[in-house]
């Protein structure tokens, strides 16, 4: 079948999975499990955030998905085909940035892209110059294309790595910490680029330790800790999980009368009260969440709680529940901060 000079990747029937793993496991020498029975499902067309502290097995997973390392047990399918068996068919449709960019320092930015493109069996050498130029423009490196890569800043190297992933129209982009080393402006540009690619129908698998970044661009997310998958689903569902168990999330009251506020709130069933300067935070009682609990007490209305505070003479500057951020989700699920796993 002759291939038309299409610019958009083929859109397979919906419901297919861009990435699917079953019991994917990697044990390194010495028996330590870097990845332990991973069952990951990345829907096509999603922007999938892959979260976890350093050392939680994210990069090992990505390397197994890309056929760079062999799984000890389990299987992985990428774009519907088994990996690494179908590498030759799958990988041309996948753009990847794995553990930061790696470049030939003695080659210019443009020549680096030429080289990576020459390694792609389906890349047409006749359109190479044009595609390389477009990829460079897309990441904002057009002006620096002739400079030796060794003279690039980390941010520029990151951009060049991204450009290499964008040499062809891709069905799946695997981006491991894509905004690493970029300044805030660069981060915004990359996020805009990711959204743009996702809008074109490309599935984006994004690993990051920047939780707000994931929250800003991702539709789905998975959380890993110590080689295991803790949870996965849509970002909205993940936030909801936390909300359900906590009512509306954590109550925050800003007041100069912190001690009084704590007393009043305790009387109304708020638990886990913490005071930091003029901020009082606490857990709302479970029955505060709609639907109403079956308790004898009527569901606690937040406005009533505020009225009670004011009534007791507590001067309230601010009152409200903080929306659960992905960071809250993460901390609750892993029971730890965003630190290196032991």
């Amino acid at each position, binding site marked *: *079948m002759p*291939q038309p000079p299409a610019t958009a990747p*083929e859109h397979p029937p919906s419901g297919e999975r861009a990435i699917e793993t079953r019991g994917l496991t990697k044990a390194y020498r010495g028996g330590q499990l870097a990845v332990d029975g991973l069952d990951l499902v990345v829907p096509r067309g999603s922007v999938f955030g892959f979260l976890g502290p350093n050392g939680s097995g994210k990069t090992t997973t990505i*390397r197994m998905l*890309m*056929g*760079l*390392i*062999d799984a000890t047990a389990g299987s992985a399918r990428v774009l519907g085909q088994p990996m690494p068996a179908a*590498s*030759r*068919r799958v*990988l*041309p*449709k*996948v753009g*990847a940035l*794995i*553990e*930061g*960019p*790696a*470049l*030939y*320092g*003695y*080659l210019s930015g443009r020549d680096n892209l*030429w*080289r*990576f*493109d*020459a*390694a*792609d*069996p*389906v*890349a*047409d*050498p006749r359109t190479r110059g044009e595609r390389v130029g477009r990829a460079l423009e897309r990441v904002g490196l057009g002006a620096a294309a002739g400079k030796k890569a060794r003279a690039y800043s980390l941010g520029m190297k990151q951009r060049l790595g991204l450009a*290499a992933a964008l040499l*062809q129209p891709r069905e799946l982009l695997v981006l491991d910490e894509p905004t690493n080393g970029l300044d805030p402006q660069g981060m915004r540009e990359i996020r805009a680029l990711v959204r743009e690619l996702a809008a074109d129908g490309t599935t984006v698998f994004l690993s990051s330790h920047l939780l707000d970044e994931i929250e800003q661009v991702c539709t789905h997310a998975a959380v890993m800790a110590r080689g295991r998958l803790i949870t996965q689903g849509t970002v909205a569902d993940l936030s909801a999980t936390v909300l359900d168990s906590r009512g509306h999330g954590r109550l925050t009251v800003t007041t100069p009368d912190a001690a009084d506020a704590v007393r009043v709130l305790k009387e109304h069933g708020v638990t886990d009260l913490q005071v930091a300067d003029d901020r009082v935070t606490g857990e709302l009682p479970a029955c505060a969440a709609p639907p109403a609990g079956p308790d004898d007490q009527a569901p606690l209305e937040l406005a009533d709680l505020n009225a009670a505070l004011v009534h007791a003479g507590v001067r309230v500057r601010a009152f409200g529940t903080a929306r659960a951020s992905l960071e809250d989700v993460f901390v609750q699920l892993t029971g730890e901060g965003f630190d290196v796993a032991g």
Partner: protein
Amino acid sequence: MSQAEAVPRRPRPLWSLGLLRSEIGTTFRRWRTLALLAVLAGVPILVGIAVKIETGGRPGGGGGGEVGPAFISQVTNNGLFLVFTSLAVTLPFFLPMSIGVIAGDSIAGEAHGGTLRYLLVAPAGRTRLLLVKYATTLTFCLVGTLVVALSALATGALLFPLGDVTLLSGTSISFGEGLLRALAIACAVALSLVGVAAVGLFISTLTSSGIAAMATTVGLLITVQILDTIPQLDAIQPYLFPHYWLSFADLLRDPVYWDQLQKNFGLQALYAVVFGSAAWARFTTRDITA
């Protein structure tokens, strides 16, 4: 790829050649490669000047019977002999050392820089990448040898007279035929390096440090060269890759003695097969974690 029509973009049939061209271009644009070639080109110049100074430019002043590299006594009579001398001088160490650098760095250097993972997810294909790396190393063997030969020819032509060539067997051949023999010798020397290139490639697949792979290859080369000179080890010497290297001199006989040359080529082919297979077995199953 039997169901090529099911794949949206088909691999191009000549794609491997494109990858090879990219690899050769990348290798020969590196300053390190050019520096190696410059060193190789410098050896014949040094030898030529040394001979010129030593003999005071008197034709035939070298005399016979002195100890030195092969053919060196003939150089003052015929500049073409500088080609043979230079190849004899560079074959034991300079040439294989530079091959060790290129071959040792081929996979390990990419792994060290991290570019290996991007070539593999491109996807270059492990077997193909290995073949391309080996082919590039062999190209360097040929180019390195030709650089020595051409530099020697130019130096010889500048410093010494050229003319008919007296072969080792005493017969005389024309200068033109002498040039052909020189070319044949250069090819024989390049082929002699096939084995060490395969050894270097195999070592390169074992590590993620280009420097370590280069040093190991060169160290191994020196060890083997030493073993080849210890008389007590004559039982194993026919299996050492440098053992028949100097057999290229047999091309300067009339008729040519093929016995040692054939043994040399057979041995190089054996090394290429054994170490090439080992490199393939290692590289295709290796976890790329760098």
